[in-house]
């Protein structure tokens, strides 16, 4: 069961990763003219992703919270016994960053709600960048930890 939830958690994270990266690139490096893949990737209306990003973040977070106890019992114990301090510390950072990201969501909605407030333009860019960092960090750490020891071993 937890393995299924871990996979769904990962799939939600992939969707979230795509959405927040689209938005962050669109707001920091907007496309001025038609072009190739990268130009099209950032040539999207960023505000249109806001609600999807909030829903995906909450969903991914909740699934992560459900599979956290088995991680604590099985994976973290293994990491400590194997003295894999960098991997263990990376997850500690991931859990703190995810919580901060969750707390940022109300502000994120506030600055990205329609119609966009021009006075909050830099706050929009900053929140998109910070959430993008949190999501990328969490995704990469989760991926590496799953490679070290997934939940199949419990």
């Amino acid at each position: 069961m937890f393995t299924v939830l871990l996979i769904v958690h990962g799939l939600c994270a992939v969707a979230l990763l795509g959405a927040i990266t689209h938005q962050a690139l669109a707001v920091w490096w907007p496309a001025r003219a038609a072009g190739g893949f990268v130009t099209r990737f950032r040539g999207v209306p960023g505000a249109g992703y806001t609600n999807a990003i909030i829903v995906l973040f909450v969903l991914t977070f909740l699934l992560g919270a459900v599979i956290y106890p088995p991680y604590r019992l099985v994976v973290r114990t293994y990491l400590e016994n194997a003295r894999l301090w960098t991997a263990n510390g990376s997850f500690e950072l991931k859990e703190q960053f995810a919580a901060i990201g969750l707390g940022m969501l109300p502000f994120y909605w506030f600055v990205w709600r329609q119609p966009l407030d021009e006075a909050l333009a830099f706050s929009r860019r900053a929140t998109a960048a910070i959430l993008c960092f949190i999501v990328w960090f969490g995704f990469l750490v989760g991926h590496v930890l799953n490679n070290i020891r997934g939940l199949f071993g419990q």
Partner: protein
Amino acid sequence: MSFTRVLPLFSAAFALIYVLAEQANIALVTYHPRINDWDAWTQPARSGPAMYWFGWIGTAFLGATLASVASLPFSSRMKGVAWIGWVVPLLVILAFFYLMRGFFLR
């Protein structure tokens, strides 16, 4: 008085209270995964490890909600300080890199 105008304060307070709760281990609840049991407040491990992360989030959520409600009468003055909604979380993220450095310097 506007509910949405205190959202920057909510996010700033959440991040600040979260890092304080994590450092001082002030958890609204404690979870014991080995025996699948919950305790109110911060409690020592009973059987197997204790998990405080859920409790720190609860503490931060409660504290940020109370701070937001308390600041509602002053919400008309908040638009100019909307930047706290991302600056404080960013500083807390940087603080966590420092606070967790022990894992990476062994």
